[in-house]
């Protein structure tokens, strides 16, 4: 199958000033030339096939946004090669941007005070979409979601969910080959999340659009992606099918035990390191166990393990709340999670 995006050994470095602490440090920084180089992306190679929905995951500051900015042509890689739709995005940003769509989380790219339909018309002109294509696209939108209530509403009066929905629709309007969605479901309620997932899935199937999705919500990943790529500290640490993930990082299982006082205790166990029976026996010495359940681990929990328990607790999904009790070990190091 043809590739939509090819990245070869891509690196991106940033130079930042070394800041010192305290009042004296601030004064010293005034004259300091002490810069340090930070590698945001280290030697990442990646191939994304046309029509794929790919989950691009990693904790905050892992280099996800930097990668996307390079793919969209906003940033130039320090070294390595990126080809998007057969073009080098940084060298040909304008031509590249005709064939891509971008949604950046909570930052609306629409005209703030205009009703959505007027934004659409402007985008139609900017991307030079023919009348026919435009009408067809609107018809497709109508078949997928109920857009009538938001079509004549100014963006600034919309709820966050409506705004995200509008931004996604706007990103697909010129029928791009690739759409980048950076945390599209962040801060949305469960109903809206599922609406947006259905929309993305529908558009991907109808138009064959390649979708690069970054998210912290494993619900998004489970609903949309077959393949995921995980990066951490700028390095690619996983690139394969989502099903493969669970076996790849050790064989994890969740053990649930009902104790003598009828409370359930849950533990995630890595079977390559400790034996489930050992855990049960050890526990039994402390108190009586009334009941035992053994469950396969969810994607969420695997990812949590990979990130080192830092990220997942900041997730607000219902699922995260459900398993919050599970990760007693992870929770200890994750009080506040992301610095978003």
């Amino acid at each position: 199958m043809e590739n939509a995006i090819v990245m070869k050994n891509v690196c991106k470095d940033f130079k930042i000033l070394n800041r010192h602490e305290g009042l004296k440090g601030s004064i010293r920084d005034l004259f300091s030339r002490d810069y340090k180089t930070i590698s945001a992306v280290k030697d990442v190679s990646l191939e994304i096939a046309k029509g794929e929905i790919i989950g691009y995951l990693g904790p905050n500051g892992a280099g996800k946004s930097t990668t996307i900015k390079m793919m969209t042509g906003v940033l130039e890689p320090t070294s390595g090669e990126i080809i998007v739709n057969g073009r080098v995005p940084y060298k040909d940003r304008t031509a590249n941007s005709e064939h891509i769509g971008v949604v950046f989380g909570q930052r609306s790219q629409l005209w703030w005070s205009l009703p959505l339909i007027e934004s659409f018309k402007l985008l139609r002109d900017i991307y030079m979409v023919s009348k026919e294509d435009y009408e067809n696209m609107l018809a497709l939108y109508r078949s997928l979601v109920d857009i009538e209530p938001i079509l004549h509403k100014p963006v600034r009066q919309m709820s966050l969910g409506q705004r995200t929905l509008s931004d996604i629709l706007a990103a697909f309007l010129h029928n791009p080959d690739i759409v980048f969605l950076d945390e599209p479901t962040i801060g949305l309620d469960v109903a809206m999340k599922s609406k947006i997932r259905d929309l993305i899935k529908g558009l991907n199937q109808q138009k064959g659009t390649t979708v690069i999705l970054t998210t912290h919500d494993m619900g998004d990943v489970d609903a949309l992606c077959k393949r995921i790529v995980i990066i951490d500290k700028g390095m690619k640490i996983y690139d394969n099918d989502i099903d493969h993930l669970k076996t790849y990082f050790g064989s994890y299982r969740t053990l649930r035990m009902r104790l003598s006082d009828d409370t359930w205790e849950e533990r995630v166990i890595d079977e390559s390191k400790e034996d489930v029976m050992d855990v049960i026996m050890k526990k039994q010495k402390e108190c009586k166990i009334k009941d035992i359940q053994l469950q396969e681990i969810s994607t969420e929990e695997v990812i949590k393990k990979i990130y080192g328990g830092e990220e997942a607790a900041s997730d607000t999904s219902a699922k995260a709340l459900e398993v919050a009790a599970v990760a007693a070990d992870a929770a200890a190091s994750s009080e506040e999670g992301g610095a978003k």
Partner: protein
Amino acid sequence: MNESAFGNEVKKRRRGFGFYARIYRKILVQDLKSKMSYRADFIISTIGMIMTNLSGFVTFLILFKNFPSINGWDYHHMLFLYGFSLIALTPVQCFFDNNWNLRFQVQSGDFIKYCFRPINVFFYFMSEVFDVKGLGQFAFGIGTLVYAWVHIGIPVTPLVILKLILFLITASLFMIAIMNAAAATCFWIVGSGYVMVIMFRFKDFAKYPSNIFHGVFRILFTFVIPIAFVAYYPSLAILESENVPVLTWCAPAIGVLFFYLSYKFWMLGVRKYDFTGS
């Protein structure tokens, strides 16, 4: 023209001047429509604009009450210069006002949204704001200019009118260039807001004859921070019948050059900026 139904065929058309003019007009119309819904803001801002101009005028009057002439320029010639500078400052106020928001958008990272569209980033950014208040200043400037014009007794011929228009456009290019460059400093310098504030205050000196500057500062205010071109040199084309300085005739070309350089500087900032703010 063959209106092809295939999206890709259509997309290959070039985005020329006509395209940008059409987009700008459409955004402008929409923008004006939505501005009508903020009537209170519009009225207060207009009052503010009138106040600024009135206050500038009062300063001018007080000055002339104490000092009858400045460097050989009498009241009416100074008034001409004043009106000229007000008109020349209108385009930067009307079309390039979004420069004032650049710093905040760059710092918050919101600026990135301008980089995802297949149109010129500078155009896209500036098109977002059209400042209607600038028109009030324009009217004030016209009034002042006409008054001074009549009192000085400059003959009205088609050639003079043509010259006036040409040199007003020239003059406005310089102010736009100054503000573009000042705004673009925020791509490199955090906390550069003050640069814009002070450059905007420099414009108050455009309404004085630039032969008051001497030595290295004359060069500085002519070629580095070109406030001498915002009113003084261009207006000499109308005020003087002979002995017009060479710099006056060169002004249109220099203006285009300055505008181009400021645009390039602005765009360089966009490329250099690493969009780390989030």
